[in-house]
């Protein structure tokens, strides 16, 4: 069932287009750096000023650029559509009378959304890597701490970073899944989910809500950069993953409680 679900998702033009755009972001970034020429002032976003030294950094710069806005938006679109989209098409009634089982369907949807989160971050990383390799020299990697690691290890850490960014998005994805069980209007669910991401990011930047900051699911979103330190700084990443697990537990349970008893009228 999971394979059929994934096939249904990834055959959709909208999903293909989103992944294409995500891959194009770091590529466009790399092209911009290429034509602006030479090392930048060092005041740009993290990793961006390293791109011209080592093309591999285009992938990491892409993730840094994509995570505040593009990735949450895309995840909101796919997770908010998970159940409400089926209701809107009317396919939900045929899935449930097949019978797929409500808990099983929700679990399949959750797994599919998680796979999509990974596909989205890998698309960003791959887009950046390909553009970076074409436009810039590639070689041994200088970490943020100033030490040097092999290119192979740098690549490994880059894809590990993509994995951690994907995991960072799961809290938001579970909010989206919950919202999508509340309505038959997918656009509303997508907008509400994206709204939560914006709200969390805004609160995280307001000093007056400092007490809330450690509990905001966007708070640790840039911690993946710690993978490029030497030695790797795990504390931020661990705090991030722990927080995401908390969000998943709360919102997946809420989604299940709602969906397993819901009257399906669509």
């Amino acid at each position: 069932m999971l394979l059929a679900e994934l096939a249904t998702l990834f055959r959709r033009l909208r999903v293909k287009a989103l992944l294409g755009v995500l891959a194009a972001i770091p590529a466009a970034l790399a092209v911009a750096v290429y034509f602006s020429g030479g090392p930048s002032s060092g005041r740009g976003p993290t990793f961006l000023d390293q791109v011209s030294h080592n093309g591999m950094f285009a992938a990491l710069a892409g993730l840094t650029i994509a995570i505040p806005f593009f990735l949450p938006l895309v995840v909101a679109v796919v997770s908010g559509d998970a159940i409400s989209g089926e209701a809107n098409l009317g396919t939900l009634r045929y899935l449930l009378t097949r019978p797929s089982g409500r808990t099983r369907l929700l679990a399949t949807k959750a797994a599919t959304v998680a796979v999509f989160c990974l596909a989205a971050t890998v698309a960003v990383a791959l887009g950046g890597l390909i553009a970076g390799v074409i436009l810039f020299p590639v070689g041994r990697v200088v970490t943020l701490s100033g030490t040097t690691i092999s290119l192979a290890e740098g690549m490994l850490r880059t894809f590990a970073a993509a994995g951690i960014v994907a995991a960072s998005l799961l809290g938001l994805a579970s909010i989206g899944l919950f919202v999508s069980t509340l309505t038959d209007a997918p656009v509303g669910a997508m907008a509400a989910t994206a709204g939560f991401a914006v709200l969390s990011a805004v609160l995280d930047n307001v000093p007056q809500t400092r007490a809330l900051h450690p509990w905001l699911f966007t708070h640790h979103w840039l911690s993946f950069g710690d993978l490029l330190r030497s030695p790797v700084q795990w504390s931020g990443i661990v705090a991030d993953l722990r927080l995401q697990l908390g969000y998943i537990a709360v919102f997946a349970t809420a989604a299940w409680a709602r969906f397993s008893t819901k009257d399906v009228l669509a």
Partner: protein
Amino acid sequence: MTGTAAQSRGTLAIETQGLTKRFGDMAAVDGIDLSVPVGSVFGFLGPNGSGKTTTIRVLLGLINASEGSWELLGQPMPDRARRVLPDVGALIEGPAFYPWLTGRQNLVRFDAAGPDAQRSTRKRRIDDALARVGLTAVASKKVKTYSFGMRQRLGLALALLRPRQLLVLDEPTNGMDPQGTREIRNLTKELAGEGATVFLSSHLLSEVEQVCTHVAVMSLGKLLAQGPIAELAGAAATRLRVETDDVAVATQVLERLGLAELSVEGTTVLANLDGHRPEDCNRELVLAGVGVRSLTAIRPTLEDTFVALTGEGFDVAR
């Protein structure tokens, strides 16, 4: 199948006891006791808004019943849904598919979503179902290019994807051309011939009259009547229709004979026959000197029964 066997437990494909669904204060389905015998083609009739679709949604476990209990194929629902529903094919309130997938991909997607994937036979089952509804030629076209009638056919293919003991078809001929309607009628008969019970909700009375062995009539959430179609159709009175210029005399004669519910429209007199033989009426009329132009006994149709039960009104009941 004998009447007694049909009434005993286990030989009913669908059985509900006091099934009720309330939305707020309104009872969309109000304590219905439905008995659908195994092997019947059961017409489920009612005006728009009478609760037919809500009943079907409750039966299939899409919405929770407020009160009452029900069984499908002798199994208590909704507890045994996982075991029962694979044997039930359904078309509920029109077809619904993923427009960006082809007809075949849609069928694969729904087939794979069940608890009993049976992947080895999937291709053959899909080919058979597509052939049965005449969609083989467009199976690899995207559903967004399908006409409504083609989607309806694909919906039927989905319902026929595996051998079913019970088919629940909600308005299956909706949006179909006359040829398609005919095919559906033949398909329904064919399925019944193979031993499946067909539960057919419709507002097309002529349609139901042609294929159904049993009918039930709903109105305002209540079940007004159910039973073999011959019994229900016979429930309304047979009418006598006399055409004559001597309307006044004819009315007197029929009144004297004891015919009730006399009415006159121009040169036509109508009355309930109430067991009188039409030939006796004719003789009396002629003896009284009435010039009878024509005299007909009008047997009641299902439509008469339906209108007698649910009223004439064209308005949605609520």
